[in-house]
């Protein structure tokens, strides 16, 4: 492993990769800073661009956008009280109050410093924990792979705990869409309606782009909102200069919050929002010098929130890269990006494809340093981005998504597919459906079906395949984890509702 890491440093530190890190991080910060645009959308739109690039810089680009967007969300949270990404909702609470007190620069500095520590901890965890977990996945046969697919789908319960039924239907819709095309064992065609285009299945990337970007464009135009950052706010950012000691201002808060973020990230479905609220709660109770200031514009709260939600970034990639279980929506999309490059999660990724995955992780580590530099010295410029008129932003996204969908295979049908999924996503969002369960079903469906088909061939039928799972320890552990993953969010939601009633 150490040898792979040393070689990866050599492979990651190329002029092209560094350029990709700088550009990807800046782009991610811009995407995150713009309210309404999410890291998921940014990564989905960028997949076609990275598809044409070499694998390592392509993956580094996706990682850079992911980390940049996670931090970027705090800029609009601090300045506008509008979280650019869901994960920065907790930052808005204290960050914006700091802005109102005339401490916008301090809030933005703290958010980038804490994001850096959170991201750094998550990159280190990714570098050292992922290979260990990948080794463990060597023990997995078809039954375990099928069960992993099922376990991956159970994160729908956490993502859609407010309305589990809609999440489950979305998941089944995704699984149904994954059935379209040739079946993996017999080669029979399913649900193609006589079209040649559907024989190879639903085009994953155009579908992802459509589901995540088109509804946001329509919402942007329909809401007709113009976000205004006053010039006073922007001027206050540049008033005082940054001091180096600010990077180490709250070491315990950075450390504890980052660890919370990493652990929450590894748990499929938990997400950055939960991590930041948990980190704030922990810091307030155990670490803060002025806990009474929390919620009133506390710098310590901003530090905890941002270290927590950026700690999730690398953590969420650990189960995705090693087991094929995406920890959140962005890692599900990144998994799609890996799969179209012919890379499949698991132990082989860390052995046969070590020349790709380790440089990617080192690139991910590098992103954190550039995020710190860009965030510290460019915060004022990134803040100006939130003044960008929404009409230009909307047309820009439509143009990029159209070209992106077309570029995958130089095929106009992919563009049509993207629009079909776009309108489907919009209509479903309007009746309270989230796109992520559909994406999870679409991605995990084929993995689950392949595992089940292989297991049924070995054991002589689907019934036997399921029975054989009960005699395999890893399968049993995964069944237990799946049940926990399904039940825990529902129970947690009910307890919360009961508490609120009281």
């Amino acid at each position, binding site marked *: 492993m150490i040898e792979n890491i040393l070689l990866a440093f050599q492979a990651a530190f190329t002029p092209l990769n560094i350029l990709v890190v700088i550009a990807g991080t800046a782009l991610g910060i811009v995407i995150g800073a713009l309210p309404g645009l999410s890291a998921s959308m940014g990564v989905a739109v960028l997949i076609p661009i990275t598809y044409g690039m070499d694998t390592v810089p392509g993956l580094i680009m996706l990682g850079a956008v992911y980390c940049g967007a996670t931090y970027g969300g705090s800029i609009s949270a601090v300045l506008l009280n509008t979280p650019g990404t869901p994960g920065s909702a907790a930052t808005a609470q204290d960050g914006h109050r700091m802005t109102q007190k005339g401490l916008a620069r301090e809030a933005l500095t703290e958010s980038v410093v804490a994001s850096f520590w959170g991201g750094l901890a998550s990159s280190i965890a990714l570098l050292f924990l992922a290979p260990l977990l990948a080794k463990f996945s060597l023990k997995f046969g078809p039954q375990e792979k099928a069960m992993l697919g099922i376990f991956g789908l159970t994160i729908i319960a956490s993502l859609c705990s407010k309305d589990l039924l809609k999440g489950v239907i979305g998941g*089944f819709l995704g699984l*149904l869409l994954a059935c379209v095309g040739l079946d993996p064992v017999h080669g029979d065609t399913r649900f193609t309606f006589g079209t040649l285009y559907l024989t190879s299945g639903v085009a994953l990337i155009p579908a992802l782009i459509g589901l995540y970007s088109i509804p946001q464009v329509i919402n942007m135009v329909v809401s007709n909102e113009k976000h205004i950052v006053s010039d006073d706010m922007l001027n206050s950012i540049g008033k005082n200069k940054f001091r180096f000691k600010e990077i180490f201002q709250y070491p315990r808060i950075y450390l504890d919050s980052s660890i919370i973020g990493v652990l929450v990230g590894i748990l499929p479905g938990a997400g950055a929002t939960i991590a930041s609220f948990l980190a704030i709660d922990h810091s307030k109770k155990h670490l803060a010098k002025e806990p009474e200031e929390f919620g009133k514009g506390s710098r310590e709260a901003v530090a905890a929130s941002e270290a927590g939600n950026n700690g999730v970034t690398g953590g969420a990639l650990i189960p995705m890269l090693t087991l094929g279980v995406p920890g959140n929506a962005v890692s599900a999309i990144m998994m799609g990006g890996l799969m179209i490059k012919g890379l499949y999660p698991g132990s082989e990724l860390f052995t046969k494809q070590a020349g790709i995955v380790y440089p990617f992780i080192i690139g991910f580590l590098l992103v954190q340093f550039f995020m710190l530099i860009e965030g510290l010295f460019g915060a004022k410029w990134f803040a100006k981005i939130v003044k960008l008129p929404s009409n230009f932003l*909307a047309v820009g996204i*439509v143009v990029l998504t159209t*070209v992106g969908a077309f570029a995958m295979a130089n095929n106009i049908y992919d563009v049509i597919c993207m629009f079909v999924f776009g309108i489907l996503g919009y209509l479903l969002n309007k009746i309270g459906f989230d796109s992520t369960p559909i994406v999870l079903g679409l991605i995990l469906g084929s993995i689950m079906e392949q595992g089940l088909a292989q297991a049924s061939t070995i054991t002589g039928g689907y019934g036997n395949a399921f029975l054989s799972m009960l005699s395999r320890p890893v399968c049993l552990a995964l069944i237990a984890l799946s049940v926990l993953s399904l039940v825990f969010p529902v129970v947690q939601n009910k307890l919360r509702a009961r508490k609120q009633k009281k």
Partner: protein
Amino acid sequence: MNKNKKELIGALCFVALFGYMTLLTSRLNAGVKPYTFTIVLGGLLFSLLYLVRSAVALMKANKAEVAEEKTVPSGRLKWVFITFGCAILYGLAFYYLGYIISTVLYVTLFAYLVDKDAKKWVYPLVGVVLVVFLYFVFGRFLNVMLPKGILNIG
């Protein structure tokens, strides 16, 4: 339209979709059937549950005369159709007219239609900047054959 009615229509669409897919699955070969059946029947079962829940919610709302909850701001519904219609037209023009003409036209016209606040020359300028970006990033850097269209420009 009332949110509950929308949910009911949505539930009906899901039931129809999974029901139709169940019918199609029955015509598949025996080897493919078990897994596909599990998926479509599962989807159908939960869609039926959703249908019942939506119907009950609608009846309760009718009795209580709950105020209508709007999912689209009033007067802005037409923008859903305009935005989507223009995007599809752009997608088709992109292929048949080529990326240069279609992008400049789409950016200029649609951005102006949505918001007329900027100076008029800004709209085509943004279109041209986007075309240059597409040319260098996709055409040159990523070697994507961008469509030249019937006029063969690009």
